């Protein structure tokens, strides 16, 4: 996901519902990892709010508050049907994952058929690389490389990412990949892209490809609107001030 879902307080639950339905299980076990935000409480609460109403078995894996539950993070992840990774600082998330062996566990879970999902930092981490704002300015960062290529997120929400991403692909710092709007998502089966979906009309996915040295082409990919989303009534446009207030109230930090 380039953004959207419960952590960003998206009103449409379509993307979150898709995560559950893709498991193919009547009551899937789903675990949320808020590592990239430092295990922010707001995100945890919203996870229960959104998924609590659906038939599934919920859990949170908190790497900053592990002491409370005393679970083995690796075993716990391998026992899931779906793993949902939240947004925040991609650099911090991967560093903390490495220390806890969660990076290896993610690969093992993926190879065992566990569905991996996420938004923002939680989406870029599956690729070879992404664009992080963890240091303030946009810069390339390596991911877990389960999927080939690279990803850039919040295409519409944070417009300064695309030029940085395009430049990184053109210069060869990042391999060719995708730039994704908030509320749009890529769906992969194994390492193959099976389609692009969206929970909002007009949400885009761009294919960004390295061409001749120093150049990157941008091509719009077809996006399918998810069931239950009204094509005629997109979410009303918000002024910057309203968005900022909402982000502030939500404790949301949109830089990854």
């Amino acid at each position, binding site marked *: 996901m380039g953004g959207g879902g419960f952590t960003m307080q998206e009103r449409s639950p379509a993307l979150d519902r898709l995560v559950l339905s893709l498991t193919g299980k009547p009551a899937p076990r789903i675990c949320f990892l808020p590592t990239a935000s430092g295990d922010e409480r707001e995100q945890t609460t919203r996870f229960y709010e959104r998924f609590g109403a659906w038939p599934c078995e919920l859990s949170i894996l908190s*790497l900053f508050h592990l*002491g409370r539950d005393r679970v*083995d993070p690796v075993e716990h992840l391998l026992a899931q049907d779906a793993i949902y990774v939240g947004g925040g600082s991609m650099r*911090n998330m991967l560093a*903390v994952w*490495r220390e*806890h062996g969660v990076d290896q566990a993610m690969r093992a879970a993926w190879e065992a058929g566990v569905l991996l999902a996420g938004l923002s930092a939680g989406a870029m981490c599956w690729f070879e690389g992404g664009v992080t704002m963890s240091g303030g300015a946009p810069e390339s960062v390596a991911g877990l490389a389960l999927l080939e290529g690279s990803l850039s997120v919040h295409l519409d929400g944070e417009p300064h990412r695309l030029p940085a991403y395009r430049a990184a692909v053109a210069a060869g710092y990042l391999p060719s990949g995708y730039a994704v709007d908030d509320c749009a998502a890529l769906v992969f089966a194994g390492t193959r892209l099976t389609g692009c979906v969206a929970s909002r009309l007009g949400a885009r996915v761009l294919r960004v490809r390295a061409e001749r040295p120093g150049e990157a082409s941008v091509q719009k990919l077809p996006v399918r609107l998810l069931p239950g989303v009204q094509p005629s009534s997109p979410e009303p446009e918000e002024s910057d001030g309203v968005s900022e207030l909402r982000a502030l109230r939500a404790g949301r*930090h949109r830089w990854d």
Partner: protein
Amino acid sequence: MEWGNSLLDDHVLSLTGVQRPRICFLPTASGDADHYVVRFYRAFPASRCEPSHISLFRRETGVGDPRVHLLGQDVVYVGGGSLVSLLGTWQAHGIDLALHEAWRAGVLLCGGSAGSLCWFSHAVSAFHEGEPRRIQGLGFLPWSNAVHYADEPGRRSAFINAVAAGMPSGYGVGDAAALHFVGTDLAEVVSSKCGAHATYVCPDGNGGATERELPVRFLGEPAMGVGDPATELGEAVAEVAGRSVATEVGGRSEPALVEGGAIAA
């Protein structure tokens, strides 16, 4: 940052010898929890110091270059939480190197719980899954450390067993007690409460490990009729306490105050 007891906080500020010390809080081990940052600013108001904090999860909001900021401090205060997550995040931002540089330059480093364990070569932390386990710290202090010692079940025995199994000798620190190092040597143990404990654990030469209780100086006024716990604990342990030597590097001492206080996220 104990509730209603500022003795250790006051002591940290007084050790700088500066009228209005610059003190920077690193809440990394808690995932930069908001409530913890608020608690820091309440404990260290601008009336008595120049407080700041560095959030590594929200780099865009805070200070510019963390290294430059840390080097400009009189005190760096590290909060509690997960030691493993703390070390991983610091490495990703080069904070480990910056802190070493700051320490060598004479900045006072202190912290509670994970914020204590991190300075040592090894720590035994019960924070994570299963049994308490041995974790490698930054190694500024060549000893090992355990906190909430004897306050939480399993910590004491795990620490003693780890030292017996070859972990460097070190210090088990109870809640409200704090180790004060000058350079890499223990200068004294202070406390914010009467009866706080600190223990030195070293190999006994027979494949096991032995504990020696350390004298603790209570920082507050002794209550009437109650003896000073430091004198009560006796002089049998003077050997350890007596090793305190002020280490001068570049003309400045390099103290580290390490708190075993109950500071948890």
